[in-house]
């Protein structure tokens, strides 16, 4: 019993205390008879034989007492820890913009080892390749399976047309893989390898976006949560950064490029709203990456870069937007990035894909279940069946009756005609006999009167 109590600490205190005063916010009056509830709004269809659009009654109430379903988010919290998390993100940008360093800084570990200096005689590869690095990271018992996808070679060639193709292919193939997995009969071991975010590194030119930047972003912005960052922002002054950010945002807006913005909810508290606004105001994030610890102003070791003119601290919000990027990508919105990928980006991709495969949308399957409509449908079918049964039975019945009637009529007619025939025959016989009899009688009477005459007549016979 102790465990039960520890799990439900507020049973005695809260339970049923407010049973009566649950506040009815908006209650649609549930009509007493189900039939009235099913009466469709279109009055043209009073007999309910056609397509019925049921009005769904929903009881809306706000409960003050303790019921317990409000604990579901907590259950999800626990469950999510048990199940662990996964996150896949793409980093795209020309080489030398500090992508690997930034990833290492973000997760505070050497995901990408220090690159060896390329042999000067080696031919620089020009094709864009796709490379992935995975790691399992655990922090306070929370596990994250992280995959970073990288496209080395992007933007490095002299002619960069189509250099985005391998990246788009990678994004698509990860969607396709998921689509295939969710279509399979057995999908208990479905793994989410979809790209949850794409961090695009903008060269800190201080001018504006380059044509390649714009073209690339326009190619991918409907497929991924796009997060543009200004790389190596320590080469720009505060003012330059502000101007550069503004120009980039202008470009993004004019070109109609969708970038990921943290979602907001109806009942967010003020703190959340403010922090979200602050975060939004920093987009595109100007970042500096460094895993090196340097000695900061107050003597503490900080991650940063030491210059003769000072130290730029990665984790200092006054120096760069690194903390904001991490907030968006990991601390506050990683799950939202995954959510948007699953609910919007993937769904859009899937819709498009299936449509192109010629699969038509069947809107009829999305109707709200209504037992009365269902019953009506079944009743209609049942009545049709009954009518068919009746018609069949009736036709068989009528046919049989007609046959029998005809047979009887025939035998009746035969009977009458035979009787008539026979009677006529017999009557004829009677007539003949009567004639004979009369003749005989007459002759005998004559004989009595005139016997000699009769004798002579007999002789003649």
């Amino acid at each position: 019993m102790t465990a039960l109590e520890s799990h439900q600490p507020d049973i005695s205190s809260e339970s049923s205390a407010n049973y009566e005063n649950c506040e009815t916010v908006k209650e649609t009056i549930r009509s007493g008879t189900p039939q009235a509830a099913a009466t469709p709004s279109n009055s043209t269809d009073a007999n309910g034989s056609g397509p019925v659009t049921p009005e769904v009654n929903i009881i809306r109430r706000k409960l003050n007492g303790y019921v317990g379903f409000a604990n579901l988010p907590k259950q999800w919290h626990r469950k999510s820890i048990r199940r662990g998390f996964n996150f896949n993100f793409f980093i795209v940008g020309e080489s030398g913009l500090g992508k690997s360093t930034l990833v290492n800084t973000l997760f505070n570990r050497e995901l990408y080892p220090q690159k060896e200096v390329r042999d000067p005689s080696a031919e620089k590869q020009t094709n864009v390749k796709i490379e992935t690095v995975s790691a399992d990271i655990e922090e306070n018992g929370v596990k994250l399976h992280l995959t970073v996808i990288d496209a080395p070679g992007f933007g490095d060639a002299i002619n960069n047309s189509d250099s985005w193709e391998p990246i788009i292919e990678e994004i698509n193939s990860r969607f396709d893989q998921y689509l295939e997995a969710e279509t399979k009969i057995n999908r208990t071991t479905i793994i989410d390898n979809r790209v949850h975010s794409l961090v695009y590194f903008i060269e800190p030119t201080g001018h504006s976006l380059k044509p390649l930047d714009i073209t690339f972003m326009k190619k991918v912005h409907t497929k991924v949560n796009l997060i543009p960052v200004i790389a190596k922002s320590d080469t720009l002054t505060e003012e330059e950064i502000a101007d550069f950010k503004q120009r980039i945002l202008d470009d993004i807006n004019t070109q109609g490029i969708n970038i990921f913005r943290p979602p907001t909810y109806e009942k967010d508290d003020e703190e959340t709203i403010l922090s979200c606004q602050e975060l939004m105001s920093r987009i595109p994030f100007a970042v500096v990456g460094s895993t090196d610890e340097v000695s900061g102003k107050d003597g503490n070791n900080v991650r940063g870069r030491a210059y003769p003119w000072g130290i730029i601290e990665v984790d200092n919000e006054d120096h760069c937007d690194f903390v904001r990027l991490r907030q968006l990508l990991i601390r506050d919105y990683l799950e939202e990035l995954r959510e948007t990928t699953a609910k919007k980006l993937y769904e859009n991709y899937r819709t498009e894909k299936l449509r192109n495969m010629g699969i038509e949308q069947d809107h009829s399957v999305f109707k709200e279940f209504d037992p009365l409509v269902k019953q009506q449908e079944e009743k209609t079918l049942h009545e049709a069946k009954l009518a068919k049964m009746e018609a069949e039975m009736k036709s068989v019945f009528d046919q049989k009756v007609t046959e029998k009637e005809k047979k009887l009529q025939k035998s009746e007619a035969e009977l009458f005609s035979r009787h008539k025939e026979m009677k006529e025959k017999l009557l004829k016989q009677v007539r003949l006999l009567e004639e004979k009899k009369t003749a005989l009688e007459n002759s005998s009477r004559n004989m009595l009167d005139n016997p000699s005459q009769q004798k002579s007549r007999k002789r003649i016979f």
Partner: protein
Amino acid sequence: MSDFVGISNLPNQRYKIVSKTGSTFTLMVAGESGLGKTTFINTLFQTSLKSHVDHKARHQKGIRSTVEIDIVRAELEEKDFKIRLNIIDTPGFGDNVNNRRAFQPLIDFIDDQHDSYMKQEQQPTRSEIKDLRVHACLYFIRPTGHSLKPLDIEVMKKLSTRVNLVPIISKADTLSPREINEFKQRIRAVIEAQEIKIYSPPIEIDDEASAEHSKILIESIPFAIIGSETKVQNPEGEMVLGREYPWGIAEVENEQHSDFLKLRSLLLRTNMLDLILSTEELHYETYRALKLDASNGNKDDSRSKLTKRFNNNPQFKEEEDQLKKVFTDQVKAEEGRFRKWEQNIINERQRMNLDLESVQHQIKQLEEQIKDLNIKKGYK
């Protein structure tokens, strides 16, 4: 500070998303009428969601008895958390003498919802998906103190392969604690012997408190409950949900009196998510796999299923029988008419025969007479 990446914050992000988006929960209550299903639902959610059967209407040929499935839809908010709640019930249940078929609509409903979800899920655009998959089915057992009836066993078997089945002994205030224990043991024995797969809270061995809690819940199955929507004063002077008898107060939320709190914990407080996820990941997936496996061969499956259902509907069956009877009667009536007709013909024939006979007789007479006349003549 720099060591902290922020991964440990991910569960909080999940918490926030779930809090803000809310959830859907569908609960089915199965059992004969009069077992306190409506009261239980209203007690569980502390608001009158379902209205009680109007006893005054029972003499009218009610609409209620023609409704196979009743759905109550609600949007409840507790501490700013919203759920879309659906309660599935069979109002006409137990109105028939033979209840074998009365459960069929419940089973059909579960399958139908899985089917509907599957069809929706397969569409190119599926943002408007309507989800009425049943997350838990509460099976109300009559507090007889004996054991499960054969019908209970049959129905529970069918339900348990499709849904999270939670058996409940209702109106437990008619049994003494000893009787309840014995009754529970007997039911558990039958459930085990019949291999009925009831819902069992998972025991997470790495979390002692939770595992202990699950154990307590499992040991209480089938939950013996008392339902009441009214408050009475208990001996301690508190106003509590309960039932007042001359011999005392049966309190709904008193652990000594009923398992209501444990059941509520299982349904909402601690295991609601597990019920939802196991429905989606186990029961729905099982249905989907079976269906996809079968659909390779049988395309006309939905129709045959529908026709099969007609036979399950006692009213439809009755109507069919009625129609057949009408025809049988008609056939009988016609047969009678034909028999009479035939009899008439026979009578007529006899009359005619008599008529002919009389003529023949006349002929004979005439012949006799002629003969006589001839003889007479000959003597002359």
